[in-house]
Structure formats: structure tokens, C-alpha cells
């Protein structure tokens, strides 16, 4: 637009006219009834007008940019699908990355969409409300483009077809679900710290860069394009998360301890989720980008460290868990992969023992830990598998009451000792995986006693397919768990010998030879 009126206005004034000048303080209804959620967490906001808009995008410009991006994105997806793009990935093991991604990520993007819609309704400042609404609609974009990009793989490979059904049922997806359920059930300010700051700012790079780069390195143009196309949205989301933290801290000194506690809590909760990203990077990508340890150093220790240095002027200190995450970066990816390998009957993706070359790569990348702790375990499993005695842990896992991860992490400072913590609340014992999760539990026990732990719920008869009579005399809890999960048997267990492996080989042959 090029008009006299706008020439007089600066960008900031113009954007203000387009957003907060539209708002008014209601008088027929009390403001505290219109916006009832922004006081109970204890955060004090004195002047919502002090909010600095993190980006200034009016809807006309938004539609212009976003429609250009969508047009390109879907053209590439169509081309990729039409040309059997799935056969151009490095090797069929890569497709298991997509299975892990589809189960864990679009459902959480959807929760982000719903959560940011709530923020876009509940924040009583017009500035943050508009920014949150824009993020909400972006998050619709993200879960939908992710599903669309993987949809074509689902037609050819097993284990992706029931992701929507499994999102609330699969034991290993429960940690991600609890993460977002926790954030969305918290108050609006905690949600903003949890998702806007800890998730979208501190941890976003280590979450998404490995997936997108992994796709690029492994010939998956569909997922790669979706990822690249989302990056400019993510840049906006990052500025929103950071602005929200600064705004809270500038509004009142009493906000500092509350915000600090949330940063500590959510950085740790996010870190626990990243174990799966670690195993994806170190074990599941046929062509590796870098090790999880290297990624952690680059994206979290360096970038995150610089960020917290920047926030020091507000009195924010580095999250309490930082030291432990640095120690764990050499362990968690191995522990996770081994953990999943041991459950061949319970995941819709395949596992495998790394090839000798891949083991050597791990030795080189993890000189302090791989040969000492993890290679022997993997080689033992390999020998057992070859001897026809494939390890299969059929027992239900024990889970952390807070992060819902299976108990598999080691005691700080002692890789040979598993870490367990417990708290007693109202006469009942609750188990956690770490000091940080225990602290989170102890701060809000009323919340975390509600956690839905699959292993417990199965035994209580709450995880049965429809039609099962849990009161029948011969009822055996969990006997039909595969049906409850709708888990396709072809998707289970080892990659070696799987239908995916055979089909991929046959189809590639068909596509490349005469």
C-alpha cells in the first residue's frame, strides 16, 4: 500500500493502528470476566501496552507470503509423490524416522495450535493476543503439512497408518502427550514459557534441525521441503517466546522467581523428550548429519548458553538442569535406542543393531562412553539375535510420574547405576526418573498424581479394545494390547526380514532396472 496516510505513519504506528488500536477496555462486561485467566498464576502485569510486538505482520501480508509458500510446497510434494520419491531415500531404514516423527510430532503441533488459540483468546493485551493467534494458525499449517508430506509413505510402508489412533494410546508417545497436556493445562503465562520459550526457543533447533537435515541428507525431499518451508514461521515463533519472557520480567520483579522456576521445569521436560531425537540422529539416519552430542554442544550449550547470558540482566540464571544435560549428552541416545530395541513387540517402527561401520562411527563420536558402556551391550544383543535368541523384554516398563519416560537413565556420575527417585504424597509412593522430575513433582503433586501411566492403566483394565469385558472372570489385562493400540504386526520388531525391507528392495529394483 502506498498512500499518503501511511507515509506519515512509521511501521510501528501503522501496525499499532492495525492491531491494538482496534481494542478497547470493555465496560458492559468487566475486563476480569472477559480475561479471567491472567492473574491466578501470580504473574503481575501492570501495563499491557508495554508489550513490544515481536513481529509486525498484517493479515494481508501474511496471506501473501504464506500462500506463496504453500503453492511451492504442495507443488514439490506432488512431484515427489508422482515420481515415487520414497524410493530415492538412502535406505529403507530411514523410513522408520518418519514413523517416529509422524507419531510424535504432528499430534503435538496440533496441541500447539489449540494451545496458542487459547492464548490468542485469553491474553488481555491486544499485542500478545494477535501474535499468539498468528502462531496458532501457523501450527495448523505445521501439523497438516507434516501429515501431507508423510501421507504418501504411509501408502507403501507399515507402521504409519494408525498414528491418529495411537497418539493417545501408545506407551512411548505418552511422554510427548504429557508434555503438551501439562503445558495446556497450566495457566497462560506458564504455557508461554513452556511452549513459546523453552520449546520454541531454547530447544527448537535441536528438535527440528536434525529432522530436517536428516531428511535432506537421506534424500527425503518431501519432509525436507516441509521443514524448510516452516522455518520462516519458526523464526516468528522464536521472537514471540523471547518477547514474552522479557515482558514478564520487565513488568514486575516479583515475576522473576516464578519465571525462573518455569524455565527450570520446562527446559528439563523438553530435554527428556529429546532423547528420542538423539537416537534418531545416532542410530536411525542411514546417513548421519552429526552426532547428538555435537548437536547438543552447538544448539544447546553454545546457543542456549549465549541466550541465558543475555537474559542474565533480568536476573535469570541458566536452568538448573543444564549441568546434567551436558553429562547426559553422551548417554541418552544409546540408552534410548537400546531401550526400544529391547521392546520389539511394542512399537510401530523397526529397530536394528548398527552395522560394524556404524558402530565405529559411534566409537569415534562418543570416545568416552560408546566402547565402554554401549558397544558391549549391542554386540551381545547382536550375537544373541544371530543365535536365534533375540532379546525381547515383555514386561511393562516403569515410568517416571512426571516426564513419563521409561526408567532408563543413569544416576548422575555413575553410568552403571539406574536412576530412581521417589516421593510420598498422601500416603502413596510416586516414582520419578531424576532429581529434576522429582522436584517438579514435589512442587505440584496434585497435578502430577493425575499422570496417565500406560503400565498402570493396563493393569487397571483401562487399555482394552472396545467390547472387552473387564469384569469377566477370565479377563487378563493387557492381553489384547496390540488391538488396543491397533498395532500392525508387520510393523513390529526387526528391520531385518521386515516387509518394508523386502518391498523397498524389490520396488527400487523395479524402478531402476529393466
Amino acid at each position: 500500500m502506498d498512500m499518503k496516510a501511511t507515509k506519515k505513519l512509521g511501521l510501528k504506528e501503522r501496525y499499532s493502528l492495525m492491531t491494538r488500536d482496534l481494542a478497547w477496555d470493555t465496560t458492559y462486561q468487566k475486563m476480569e470476566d472477559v480475561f479471567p485467566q491472567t492473574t491466578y498464576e501470580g504473574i503481575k502485569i501492570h501495563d499491557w501496552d508495554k508489550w513490544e510486538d515481536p513481529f509486525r505482520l498484517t493479515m494481508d501480508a501474511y496471506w501473501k507470503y504464506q500462500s506463496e509458500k504453500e503453492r511451492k510446497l504442495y507443488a514439490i510434494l506432488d512431484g515427489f509423490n508422482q515420481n515415487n520419491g520414497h524410493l530415492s531415500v538412502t535406505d529403507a531404514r530411514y523410513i522408520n524416522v518418519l514413523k517416529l516423527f509422524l507419531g510424535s510430532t504432528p499430534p503435538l503441533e496440533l496441541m500447539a495450535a489449540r494451545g496458542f488459540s487459547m492464548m490468542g483468546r485469553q491474553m488481555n493485551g491486544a499485542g500478545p493476543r494477535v501474535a499468539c493467534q498468528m502462531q496458532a494458525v501457523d501450527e495448523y499449517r505445521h501439523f497438516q503439512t507434516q501429515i501431507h508430506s508423510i501421507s504418501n509413505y504411509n501408502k507403501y510402508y507399515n507402521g504409519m497408518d494408525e498414528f491418529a489412533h495411537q497418539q493417545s494410546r501408545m506407551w512411548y508417545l505418552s511422554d510427548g502427550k504429557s508434555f503438551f497436556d501439562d503445558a495446556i493445562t497450566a495457566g497462560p503465562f506458564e504455557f508461554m514459557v513452556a511452549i513459546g520459550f523453552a520449546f520454541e526457543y531454547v530447544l527448537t533447533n535441536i528438535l527440528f534441525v536434525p529432522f530436517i537435515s536428516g531428511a535432506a541428507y537421506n534424500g527425503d525431499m518431501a519432509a525436507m521441503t516441509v521443514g524448510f518451508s516452516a522455518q520462516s514461521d519458526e523464526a516468528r515463533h522464536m521472537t514471540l517466546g523471547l518477547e514474552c519472557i522479557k515482558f514478564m520480567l520487565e513488568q514486575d520483579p516479583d515475576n522473576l522467581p516464578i519465571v525462573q522456576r518455569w524455565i527450570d521445569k520446562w527446559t528439563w521436560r523438553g530435554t527428556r523428550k529429546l532423547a528420542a531425537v538423539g537416537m534418531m540422529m545416532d542410530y536411525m539416519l542411514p546417513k548421519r548429519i552429526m552426532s547428538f552430542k555435537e548437536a547438543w554442544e552447538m544448539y544447546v550449550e553454545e546457543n542456549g548458553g549465549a541466550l541465558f547470558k543475555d537474559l542474565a540482566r533480568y536476573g535469570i540464571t541458566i536452568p538448573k538442569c543444564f549441568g546434567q544435560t551436558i553429562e547426559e549428552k553422551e548417554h541418552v541416545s544409546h540408552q534410548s535406542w537400546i531401550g526400544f530395541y529391547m521392546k520389539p513387540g511394542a512399537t510401530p517402527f523397526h529397530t536394528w543393531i548398527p552395522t560394524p561401520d556404524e558402530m565405529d562411527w559411534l566409537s569415534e563420536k562418543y570416545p568416552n562412553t560408546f566402547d565402554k558402556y554401549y558397544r558391549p551391550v549391542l554386540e551381545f544383543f547382536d550375537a544373541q539375535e544371530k543365535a536365534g535368541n533375540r532379546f525381547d523384554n515383555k514386561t511393562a516398563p516403569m515410568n517416571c510420574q512426571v516426564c513419563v519416560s521409561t526408567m532408563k537413565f543413569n544416576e548422575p556420575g555413575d553410568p552403571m547405576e539406574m536412576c530412581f527417585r521417589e516421593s510420598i504424597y498422601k500416603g502413596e509412593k510416586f516414582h520419578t526418573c531424576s532429581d529434576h522430575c522429582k522436584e517438579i513433582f514435589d512442587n505440584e503433586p496434585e497435578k502430577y498424581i493425575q499422570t496417565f501411566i500406560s503400565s498402570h492403566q493396563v493393569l487397571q483394565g483401562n487399555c482394552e479394545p472396545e467390547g472387552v469385558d473387564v469384569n469377566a472372570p477370565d479377563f487378563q489385562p493387557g492381553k489384547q494390547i496390540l488391538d488396543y493400540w491397533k498395532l500392525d504386526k508387520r510393523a513390529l520388531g526387526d528391520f531385518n526380514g521386515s516387509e518394508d525391507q523386502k518391498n523397498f528392495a524389490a520396488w527400487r529394483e523395479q524402478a531402476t532396472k529393466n
Partner: protein
Amino acid sequence: MAIDLRTVSITPLRQTFGHLARRMGADKPASRYIEATMDLQPVENYHYRPTWEPQYDIFDTTRTAITMKDWYALKDPRQYYYGAWTLARGRMQEVAEGDFDLVDELGLAAAYPAEGKAQALKVFLPLRHVAWASNLNKAYVSSYGYGIAISQATCYASMDQLGVAQYVTRLGMAFDDLDALAAAKTAWLEGAEWQELRRYVEDLMVEKDWFEVLVAQDFALEGLLYPLIYERYNEKLNAAYSPVFSMLTRFQREWFGETTKWLDAVIKATGADNADNKAKLAEWIKKWRDRAVVALKPVAAQAFGAEADAIMAELVQNLNARAAKAGIAL
């Protein structure tokens, strides 16, 4: 001559996701809208109750008096998933941009007769605040509505209304009149002719039943307001002066025509589910329609003078006809 382009053809193992095959009753390819919408919202095994409203689950069917056997019956005939929506809006904004450019290039706003301009801006500009309220109320529906079919459609509609509020603001700026925007805000806050309308949208900001908010904001209020202003009033101005206001509010007119199709389909599917829904919808439509008439009367009087009542009566009839067509007897 027909050319047979050859591709390597591989027989897929399945055509679509399990939840979609069950819904469609067959394993067949699903549209991108279906893939992006159906059965995606979690419905079970929530970990925690909201600290802000512990009486409810995170997503809870009891947040409205409406009941549905299938919440995904509220699907969008426009098939708007994000990509389809943003492409459609991208095209509309391109046209709007052209209109604003043309008005500027030809100096049409400056040439507009002063009397008509003052009269028109008095009617149009406070509507930016109405659109802002609509944005907020639709955000409520989107936040607490059940199922992705309704939550995404109302999320897009909410963003559309932010767009409308911004287009109305630009309309004020196109007439080079920031003072008119300020005067319109004062009128919105204090002018007697706007207070019933402001009360209406503010009352909706505390209404808890999200479906009632949808009926009151989208069906009753916008179902009268948009034809009143963006059709009838524009026609009046076109005849008396020139079509500049029609040009600069084209987005709103097109938006209303298109969005009505979606909303009527939602109302129809909801009523079709059960008799209680039908009765509830009829009750809400009557209640809010009558209030909307009260709220809009002074606005209509400003715009149409003595003809206002007749025009309002006609628009109410049209709204009743829409309800009847959707199967709701008032």
C-alpha cells in the same frame, strides 16, 4: 493425438490412514482436507485437568449444550485446510490490493463528495471494532470447540476477521483520515448509536457455551450486519456517489458470501444430528437475532434513515430463510 506418459507404477499396500479408511468405510485415497482434519484431536487418556477450569477435560464435549454423535459431521464444504484457506485468502488479498492501489492512483477517495464521505465513514469505521470483537469471539470457539473440523474453520474465520478489521482501518487511511478513525473509536465507546452493538459483542465475550457464541456472533449478528452494510449500504452509496466504498470492502462481501456456505452447513449438520440440537439452535437463533436487531437498528438508522426498518425487516426474513433452509424452524 493422445500421448501416454509412462511412470513406474508401484501398487501401494494401502490407500490411506486407518482412521480415515474406517471413517470413509473403505480403503480409498482421502483428500488433503480429510487428511488434515478428521479424528485428529485427542479424545481420551488426558494426563491432567486444566488448572484454569478443572471441571472440564482439556477437550470436553460438555462445554456446549449441543451434542453430536460425530463432531466431524461439522465439516467444511469449502474443504479449507490451512493450505487451501491461505491460497484462497491470498487471491482475495491480491484483488483487494489492486482495488486499494487503483483508488489511490486515480485519487478516487480524494474526489469523493465530502458529504457522502463523512456519512459513509461514520458508518464504516466503527465496524473495525466489531470485526475485532468477532476475531476474539471466534478465537473462543476455536479454542474450546470440539474436534478439528470446527476448531480449524473458526480459527481461520477468526484470522479473517482480524483481516477485516485491518481492511476497514485501511479504508479509513485511504481517505487520508486518521482523525476519522479516532472519531469512530470514540463513537464506538461513547456514541449512543453504537452502544447496543458494543453490549452485544461484549456479552458474547463472557458467554461460556462456545456453540452459542458461534450462533450469536456468526449466524445472528454477522448474518444481519454484513448484508446490511457491505451489500445494502454499499449499493446506496454506489447509486448516490461512486463505487469506491464497494471497491474497498470487496473482501468483506466475498468473505461473507463464502463463509455463509460453511456456517449454514455446520448449522444444518448440527440440527440434523438430533431434535434437541434443533430446538437449542432455534432458541439461540431467535434470542440472538432479536438482540442483534436491537443492536443494529441505530446503525441502520444512521445508514438508511427512514428506510432502515423496512430493510432490517427484509434482512431478518432472509436470515429466517437461511435457518429454515438449514432445517431449523424458528
